[in-house]
């Protein structure tokens, strides 16, 4: 009797656990599905009934609006540019310093490592950093979104540790064959580090695409705003294409506001959802490398 009771309660637990986690999984992505559906709905439908997953009359007018205004298109371009150039800079800066710091015998290595660890603990803070960027005349340039964040100390240490774990014999053999230090990095170390580099490429790229704070801080010129800042203007501050007031029919914008907001959210999310499958393949490992050795 007791045994049967236990198995019944076990089954009840299993069924409810499967159901519960299924709901949790759905809740994680349902907002996107809803917003995607909403972005294809007409605004009349959105005001008529807010709850649906398939729009009754399918329309792409919100997207047509987005891609007809220069302001939003320009911000998408800005984000793409910053993401691509920024990620290249990140990798270049991170890999070069990580590689030299991975050499155990290097004179001064410990001093530099200590400097880096200390900079993770304590920083000058927002205003002094802002003033440095200003003094370097980077305000209102794309560089302000790229250079001040060129290296994440945390990522650097993980990459350094990874390089350090590579078999020493390989490097020695290559050196005996006359390989230079640069050749060693390019031909031996980098190819062997592809998994970890792929992880950080994606992490850095996602960071650039999602970055809002730096742009808020350093970019005043709306034509240089990345999409995240534009998104905030449109959705949260409801300043729909203020710069375009003369060129577009403002009444139309007012009418379609809710669906345009949803469409902009979708546009801001799509790149992430596109790289997510690649990201997902790598990050579990990458995150664990970080937590174990970081």
């Amino acid at each position, binding site marked *: 009797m007791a045994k049967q009771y236990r198995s019944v309660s*076990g089954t009840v*637990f299993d069924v409810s*656990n499967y159901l519960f*986690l299924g709901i*949790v*999984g*759905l*809740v*994680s*992505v349902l*907002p996107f599905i809803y*917003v995607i559906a*909403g972005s294809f709905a007409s605004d009349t439908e959105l005001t008529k*009934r*807010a709850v649906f997953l398939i729009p009754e009359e399918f329309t792409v007018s919100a997207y047509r609006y987005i891609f007809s205004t220069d302001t939003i298109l320009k911000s998408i371009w800005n984000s793409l540019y910053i993401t691509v150039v920024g990620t290249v800079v990140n990798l270049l*800066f*991170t890999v*070069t*310093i990580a590689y*030299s710091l991975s*050499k155990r*015998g290097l*004179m001064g*290595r*410990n001093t*530099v490592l200590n*400097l*880096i660890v200390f*900079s993770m603990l304590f*920083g*000058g*803070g*927002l*205003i*002094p*950093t802002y*003033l*440095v960027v200003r003094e*370097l005349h980077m305000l209102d340039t794309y560089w302000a979104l790229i*250079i001040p964040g060129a*290296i994440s100390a945390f990522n650097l240490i993980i990459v350094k540790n990874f390089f350090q774990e590579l078999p020493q014999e390989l490097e020695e053999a290559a050196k005996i064959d006359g390989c230079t*230090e640069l050749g060693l*990095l390019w031909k031996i170390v980098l190819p062997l580090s592809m998994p970890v580099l792929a992880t950080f490429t994606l992490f850095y790229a*996602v960071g650039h695409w*999602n*970055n*809002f704070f730096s742009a808020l801080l350093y970019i005043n010129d709306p034509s240089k705003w990345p999409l995240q*800042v534009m*998104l*905030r203007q449109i*959705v949260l501050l409801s300043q729909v294409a203020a710069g375009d007031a003369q060129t577009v029919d403002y009444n139309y914008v007012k009418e379609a506001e*809710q669906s345009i*907001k949803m469409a902009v*959210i979708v546009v*801001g*999310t799509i790149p992430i959802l596109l790289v*997510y499958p690649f*990201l997902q393949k790598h*990050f579990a490992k990458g995150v664990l490398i970080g*937590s174990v050795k970081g």
Partner: protein
Amino acid sequence: MKQAAAPNELNTEQTIRAVTGRRQSVLGRFRKDKWLYLLMAPGLLYFIIFKYVPMWGILLAFKNYQPFLGFWRSEWVGFEHFRVFFGNPEFFMLLRNTLLLSFYNLIFYFPTPIILALLLNEIRLSFYKRTIQTLIYVPHFISLVIVASLTYVFLTTQGGIVNELLQQHTGSKIDFLASPDWFRPMIIMQTIWKESGFGTIIFLAALAGVDVEQYEAAIMDGASRWRQTWHITLPSIRSTIVILLILRMGDVLDNGFEQIYLLLNPLNREVAEVFDTYVYMMGITQGAFSYSTAVGLFKAVVGVILVLGANWLAKRFGQSGIY
């Protein structure tokens, strides 16, 4: 990690000396590794310019910075800015808001990844488990602007789905976005939605390391699933929980600027303004550079004390600590 590296380095150095019978000169070692130093240069320069020069800029907190006088010629005022800050009634508002948000995060957000990981761990169907994991990781990669935008689209009184439902069922709407009562719950729910799925990774990894034989033995002894969880699973991830908890302690004054700033408005400012947003507002939008540097310095110093204290605690708990 540093402790582990140091002995090795000593050995290399000793080996070199033992083999060559002499210590290489500083210049010789520098010349030998010139390519490495060249590779190191850009990164090192980065840390000096963007991390160490700003540290030196902290001196601004003790000056009265005037843009037309510049950094050097602005007059020293000692602790004047700190005195003004601690005497300001806003100080207590900021402290209260900052601490309350951290506290609620600890109570409501911290346990969720643990519970989710435990529940996921009970799933035997590996396909189902992987699917759920894939889905719950997604929000972590979405920007906070998108999260705030989703919050807005769902909660706005102008056609937001939540308010439309409220209207249908209760006949009235709630202006979540402008209400001081709803600010903290919104922030906590955002964090739970965005991060608790991703937070399971580390606990699932810890759970994967649990010895299967322990469960087999427990089943032989007639332990129920609940008993197995209580006596085997939980104790085996206890050290992970403790270290993450302690790490969070170090971040008590960091509420995350973007998330708060995006939901902050004049109507909920009384509960929403925290140290981070205050530094931004006073410094960047109002140009009080010296004053906000002082506020930032206060925050940074308390932060360092908390991190080091947390690390000390971690070591007391028999963990390896972070530094």
